[in-house]
Every structure is written in structure tokens, then in C-alpha cells.
């Protein structure tokens, strides 16, 4: 339990920026709500009672700490010692729950009676609906109409958990449009409603709140790694969509300069075609309240992202990652749909684990990263979620490639 907040490197609490990135690019109507949220967050974070409640739920309800697992057969295959941080074993099957439990506790503390969220693949929506069921708050989730079709089981899950799911038919009908619609709801019901953002993105203070709530991954992993090996890993790998699981595990190692941090974006069909890799192949801009790297046209319109993994299918990225890229503290690479699908099958066959397609990108990146560090090196991968949700997609994609 920590009752004080050590601000992240490069972060300015006055401007809400990580270096040049982040800030608050929202309609005036929302500015006071963001001030209120910042104050409530700093207040909660310095209150030991908040941490007792959060940590108890993370332990007894989410199932933390999640294991650190040495993947021996995968290690032999990639010729390096591979360790998996098993966020896939957290309740609801992904790291998303770490964030939603914390934010919904914060919302309740602020006296908000209604929670809204955006979701792409449905994982954050399920995690928000779960936290709301647990804490007895009303929940409404915005989801692109395309994603409602593609991720039908998660829609049913959210509904079983008592949430109302709104299919968003504007724009490209995917995650970015769901976020636009959630912002429209929030600006309309700002007094009564808490907006539970799902990634380390959005206007300040969301990137800070989400990274602090996900930092539990890195704190645990660092301690577990030291206990298991007596040393720190050579490199830490995590997939990056909005970037919450990556910033969560990176947070534990940011001050260990000798540990390489590698974020893995979705190269989709290739970086010269349709992809979801703003850090690797994008340009700085402003979307959804923050300045960060973005996929955009030469005229400043937001470009549609593509990834086989719905959770990475987003044209923006959390601002702290943009800062870590520019400072060189983290390195960002991109992995294609094909490589992620191969890694999905590889982990299933070698370790008996079905990884989420998002996390499969981090597994696939081992092929590029392991040779750099060599046989005896220790590589830590954040296995951010489980792959059961992706079975339909994976089977359809594999069939399509055979045809």
C-alpha cells in the first residue's frame, strides 16, 4: 500500500503533460469536471482507506497478485529465458479490471451514480460492467456498431452484468467513434456521470489515473522477478494500443535504466498499408483530449486504424508513451497481423496458454528482440489478457489464409 503519489518522470501535474504530450484538449463544459476528477483522485490516492479498499478488492476479487511464470518451452524456442506476467489470469481475463475497480471506487467516492465507458473489443466494457455490478452502480457502455457485431459474446456478457450497451453508428463505427459518443454523453450528463476511460489516454488526469492503477502490474512483476532470479530482466515487452498494460508494467522498471522497455504496436497488414502503429508510423496531433502520436491524414483528419486485434485497433496512443518514445527510454516496434496469429498458435502449443490477440503481438516480438539479448538473457512479457474472446476471429483469419 502506498499513500503518496510519486509523479511519473517528465510529468507536470499543473499542465497534465508528460513532456510535450497529454494536456487537456476538451470542450470548456468538461474542464471543471476534469479539475474535480483530478482533485478527487489526488485526494483518494493520499487516503489510506482508499488503498485498503482497492488493495483488498484486487486481492480477494481480482485475484492479485497474478503469477510470474517461466515459459520453459517457449524459452527454448526463442532462445532466451522468457517470463510471462499472467494478467490473463486476473478476473474477467485481462488487466483491464485493475483500472475499472479503481476508477469505479473513485466514482462512488465522488458521489456519481452513473458510469459510462467506451469499449472496442469489449474487454474494458466487461471490466467496467463487472466493477459496477460489484459496487452497485449504473453502467452504460458505448461500442462501435461494427464491434457489436464482431464481439457479440462480450455484448451479452455486459448485458448479463447489468450494463446497457449502446451501438454507435457514427464515423467508422469502431473504438474511436465509441469514445466520441462517450464524450458526447459525458458533456451532456457531466454533473451525475463518471466517465471511466479504458486506457492510459484521454485528457488529464486520465492518463495519470490509469497508469497509477495499472502500475500494480509492474510493481508486482519487479518484486517477483527479483525473488525468482535475483536480478532484473534485460527487457520488458508489452503490446501497445492505447497503452495501459504497457505503461502498467513499464512503470515498475522506468527507474531501472539497465532494463530495456519495448512497446509492441500492431503493424496490421503492414506499415505501408492498414495498421495501428501511431508511435512507429504516425505524426503528433490531438485526439480525444490529449496531444500524442496519431494516425492522421496530411490534412489533420484522423485515419482509421486496422489490426486483427480489436483492442489495438485505435489511431491514437496514451501520451506517456509518446514521451517515452521521444526520450528514448522506451523503444516501440510493430508486429503484423500474421505474426500475431502465429504467436497465438505458438503459445497455445508450447505452453498451453491461449493469449489474447493483443498480447500475441508482444509474444511475436520475441522473435525480433531475443536475438539482440542472447541465449542467457531474461525477457519479461506482459501477457495482458486471455484469448478465449478471440477464438472466432483467429479461426476465421486462419481459414482465410488457407483459402
Amino acid at each position, binding site marked *: 500500500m502506498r499513500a503518496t503519489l510519486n509523479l511519473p518522470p517528465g510529468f507536470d501535474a499543473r499542465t497534465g503533460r508528460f513532456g510535450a504530450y497529454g494536456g487537456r484538449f476538451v470542450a470548456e463544459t468538461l474542464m*471543471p469536471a476534469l479539475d474535480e476528477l483530478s482533485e478527487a483522485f489526488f485526494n483518494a490516492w493520499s487516503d489510506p482507506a482508499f488503498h485498503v479498499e482497492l488493495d483488498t478488492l484486487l486481492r480477494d476479487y481480482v485475484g492479485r497478485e497474478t503469477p510470474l511464470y517461466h515459459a520453459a518451452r517457449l524459452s527454448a524456442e526463442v532462445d532466451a529465458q522468457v517470463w510471462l506476467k499472467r494478467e490473463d489470469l486476473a478476473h474477467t481475463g485481462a488487466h483491464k479490471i485493475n483500472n475499472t475497480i479503481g476508477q469505479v471506487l473513485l466514482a462512488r467516492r465522488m458521489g456519481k451514480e452513473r458510469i459510462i465507458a467506451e469499449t472496442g473489443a469489449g474487454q474494458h466494457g466487461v471490466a467496467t460492467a463487472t466493477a459496477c455490478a460489484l459496487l452497485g452502480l449504473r453502467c452504460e457502455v458505448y461500442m462501435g456498431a461494427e464491434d457489436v457485431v464482431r464481439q457479440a459474446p462480450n455484448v451479452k456478457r455486459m448485458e448479463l452484468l447489468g450494463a446497457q450497451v449502446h451501438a454507435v453508428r457514427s464515423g467508422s463505427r469502431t473504438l474511436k467513434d465509441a469514445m466520441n459518443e462517450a464524450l458526447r454523453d459525458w458533456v451532456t450528463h457531466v454533473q451525475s456521470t463518471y466517465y471511466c476511460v479504458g486506457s492510459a489516454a484521454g485528457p488529464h488526469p486520465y492518463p495519470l489515473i490509469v497508469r497509477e492503477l495499472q502500475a500494480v502490474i509492474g510493481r508486482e512483476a519487479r518484486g517477483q522477478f527479483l525473488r525468482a532470479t535475483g536480478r532484473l530482466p534485460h527487457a520488458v515487452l508489452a503490446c501497445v494500443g492505447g497503452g495501459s498494460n504497457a505503461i502498467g508494467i513499464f512503470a515498475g522498471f522506468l527507474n531501472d535504466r539497465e532494463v530495456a522497455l519495448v512497446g509492441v504496436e500492431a503493424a496490421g497488414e503492414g506499415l505501408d498499408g492498414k495498421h495501428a502503429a501511431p508511435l512507429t508510423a504516425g505524426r503528433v496531433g490531438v485526439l480525444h483530449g490529449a496531444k500524442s502520436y496519431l494516425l492522421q491524414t496530411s490534412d489533420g483528419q484522423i485515419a482509421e486504424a486496422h489490426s486483427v486485434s480489436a483492442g489495438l485497433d485505435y489511431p491514437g496512443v496514451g501520451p506517456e508513451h509518446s514521451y517515452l518514445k521521444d526520450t528514448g527510454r522506451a523503444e516501440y516496434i510493430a508486429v503484423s497481423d500474421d505474426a500475431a496469429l502465429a504467436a497465438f498458435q505458438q503459445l497455445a502449443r508450447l505452453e498451453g496458454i491461449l493469449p489474447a490477440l493483443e498480447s500475441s503481438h508482444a509474444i511475436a516480438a520475441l522473435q525480433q528482440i531475443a536475438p539482440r539479448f542472447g541465449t542467457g538473457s531474461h525477457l519479461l512479457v506482459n501477457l495482458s489478457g486471455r484469448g478465449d474472446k478471440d477464438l472466432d476471429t483467429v479461426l476465421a483469419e486462419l481459414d482465410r489464409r488457407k483459402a
Partner: protein
Amino acid sequence: MGRLAEAFDKARADDRAALVIYLCGGDPSLSATVERILAAAEGGADVIELGVPFSDPSADGETIQHASERALAAGATLPGILEVARTVRARGCEVPILLFGYYNPLLSYGEENVVRDAAAAGVDGFLVVDLPPEEAEGLRRHIANAGLDYVPLVAPTSTEERIAKAGAIASGFVYYVSMTGITGAAATGLSDAARRAAALSPQLGHPVAVGFGVKTPEDAAQVATHADGVVVGSAVVRAAADAPDPSSAARAVRNTVAALAGAVASARR
């Protein structure tokens, strides 16, 4: 004094509110936008908000979302929108034009570049929906250097401190958002919002126009009874979109604006 402040002064001298009309640039084409601006000016618009379409208009309701989609599908770009302003001026129309939109297209074009090119095109000022005072310093500096106006927003949720900040950085006028919500939403308490805006005006030291949810001449009259200005967007955009062909769309804009202008002119009688 800029054209925007002049327009509000002139309306005040006539003991009426200024009528501000929003049109989405490039919806459904750049040439149609030129005709609609001229039609709106003929109909009695005192100020035109020329919308720069954006792919992710998160503060807008369906009407302006669809207008933005039409504009982008037809290939509208920021340089094209500036060309609209230039053409309007070339055709002898001096109605004040406020460039209205989201930040990313401006940032992408370059803050200094967009201000320079907008000034050259005959644009009078900027209103950027997702750029609160805290983030606007850079753009404002260029706008001030070019002698253009910067119009900030004040919302029902704005604190006294934030209202004061808006007044300190404003030029031309201040835009008061009538309710917590998005453009084109159902109006709630327009009269109260207009009274609030009228009370803010002396405190801010600038005219205050009220927008969001003002659709009909009756709505406009309610606002115009108290406030320095009335903004109508979605209702005009929809009137044009519902018209069967381009010339009747321009006519629909002129008629809609004329009805609004009539209501505004007689509101205090």
C-alpha cells in the same frame, strides 16, 4: 476594431441581438458553401461561423456530424475552406467570418500558417471547440499578431475563475454554451441561459452570444430578448441538407436565416 466587434456594436445600436449563423465548410461542396454564406448574409446574418470539418467531432450532435462527413467525403480540406472565405470576399460580401472547428486540423496545418493564410483569405477570427484557454496560448499569440479575434467558450459549468480567464483572453465576443450538451440538442432553459449571458457581458467586457439548442425563430427571440447575440447552427445546416437541389438549398438557408433575423429584430419590441 475588428469586423466581429463592429457587427455586435451595430446590432446593439439597433437595439437587437446579433445573429450568428454556423455553416459547415464543404458541405456538400466548397462552391455550395460560398452560395450558402452569401444567402445567409442576404437573409440577415450578422456573423458567419465557417465550420472546418473534422473526422471526430465529439462536441457535435448528429446534424453537424453528418454535415462534416459529407464535407470530408467530398474532399474538403482546410485550404479549401480558406478558399471559400476568399471567394466570399471576392464577391463583395463583408459579413464577418469566424473560422470554427476542432484543433487537430489547425495544428496539422501549423498554427502560424493557418492564422496567416486565414487572415489573407479575409477570415476575422477563430473559435476552437476543443482548445480551452490553458492550451490556447500559442494559437492566440499568432491570432493577436495578425490582428484577428479569438472567441473563447463559457459553459454553464464554468467556474468564476474560468469565466474571468475567458474574458481576459477574448476579443470580438464570447460564446456562451446554453446547456451541458452537444450541438443540435433539445433546448432547455434558453431564457435563463440568455439572462445569464446578458449578466456576464459587462463582467467579461465583451458581447456574449448564446448557442446550442437554438433552433426556431421562437427560440432565437427568447435568447435575443436578453443576450447580445444568438447562434444558430444545426437548424440552418438541416434546412439546407433537406433541400432537393443546390439552388433551393441556398434559398432554404436565406429563408431560414431571414425568419430567424426577423424574430431577433422584433424580440425586444
